[in-house]
């Protein structure tokens, strides 16, 4: 992406870019891709926990969005609409994996997995390097999330990363509000169990 185009991103509204894209302007769509690829990729990555497949799924989401653009109503937010497409693409992938028996994720599938034998900093031992400790904690959290079932991982990502309200999560999944709350509760309990040693030192 040329520097001039990148500069344009903040100056051109989504509505203008969407209108131009709907008229067949692929450069305008390219600007939308550049604007939102980081957020869409983060969502697919957090759900999939695999860099290559998350990359492919994010790309597939944009392709599907291009195909569906003629039906996009300008009264809705483009990112919300795009996010829903990306979520559906990713969750369909997860469902197929589950049907094929690969539903649960393990450490081998986590690219940013924790090094063998890595544990939380021992109790009472002051961390010599806060940045390193912080990075290690991040890896522990990602590994723990990767071990959740797709349903639990989904609500955690939607709530904690995307900051969606319960009603928005229920509409997106889709499921009842009660199911959203139950999944969030049990997902957090499972994470707590996996990260107990981390939080014993942190608290």
């Amino acid at each position, binding site marked *: *992406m040329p520097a001039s185009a990148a500069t344009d991103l903040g100056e051109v509204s989504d509505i203008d870019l969407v209108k131009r894209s709907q008229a067949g302007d*692929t450069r305008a*769509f*390219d600007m939308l*891709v*550049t604007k939102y*690829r*980081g*957020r869409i*990729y*983060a969502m697919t*990555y*957090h759900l999939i926990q695999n*860099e290559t497949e998350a*990359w492919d799924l*994010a*790309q597939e989401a*944009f*392709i599907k969005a*291009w*195909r569906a653009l003629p039906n996009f109503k300008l009264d809705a937010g483009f990112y919300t609409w795009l996010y829903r497409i990306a979520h559906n693409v990713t969750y369909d992938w997860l469902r197929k994996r589950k049907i094929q028996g690969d539903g649960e994720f393990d450490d081998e599938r986590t690219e940013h997995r924790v090094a063998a034998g890595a544990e939380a900093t021992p109790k009472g031992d002051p961390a010599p390097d806060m940045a390193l400790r912080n990075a290690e*904690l*991040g890896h522990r*959290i*990602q590994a723990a*999330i990767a071990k959740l079932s797709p349903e639990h991982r989904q609500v*955690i*990502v939607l*709530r*904690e*990363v*995307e*900051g969606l*309200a*319960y009603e928005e999560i229920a509409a997106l999944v889709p499921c009842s509000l*009660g199911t959203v*709350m*139950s999944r*969030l*509760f049990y997902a*957090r309990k499972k*994470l*707590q169990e996996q*990260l107990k040693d*981390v*939080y014993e030192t*942190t*608290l």
Partner: protein
Amino acid sequence: MKPPSEEHDLIRWLDGEMDETERAAFEARIKANPALAQEAEEMRALSAGIRAHLPAEMAVPHADFFNSQIQVRIGQMEIDEARRREAVAPVLGSLLSWLRQSWLTAAGAVAVAVVAFLSLRPSSEDAHSLILSSYTPSAGVQTVTFHDDNADATVLMLDGLEEVPADRKISGISISRSETEPEMASTTLFDAAGSPQLVIFRDAAGNPQFWASKPRG
């Protein structure tokens, strides 16, 4: 295990989904219950940790390639679509005009016989198809099927149709079914020279597809 309402209260408080009254009541419960207070604090710490370490936006690896691949795929889709429209339009036009011929309407739309293949069973002794029943919309048209050993083909004859003019571009229809994929059937329309003009079939996903030959210049 806690009752669901208590679990829901805890995470609703954690996620800021309670109104003021509910929140005040729940925080009073936390103050009065050390175990609940500890669980609430642990969950809040976990939630903060997740938010701190799972970014909502990430750098896309090979970002320029990511964009360029999308552009390539969009371009390819548009080329494919243009080719499909270009290839189909003339043949479909001629097919529709063929179907609108007066001889056809005068015959009460009996020119096309609909054959129901209830079962096509390859026999171990002779591998020809067995047509169990057939249907034509007009009582004046009869279907006769038989296996031609010389041609090694199952022949479907429609008796009672008005004569189809010999100069029609499309003069023959065959229906075939894959031997390896029994659900895969195709219908082929041929011109007077025996060249396929239009093939209607289903793809691997079961979606109807058609292939049309390029119009002759």
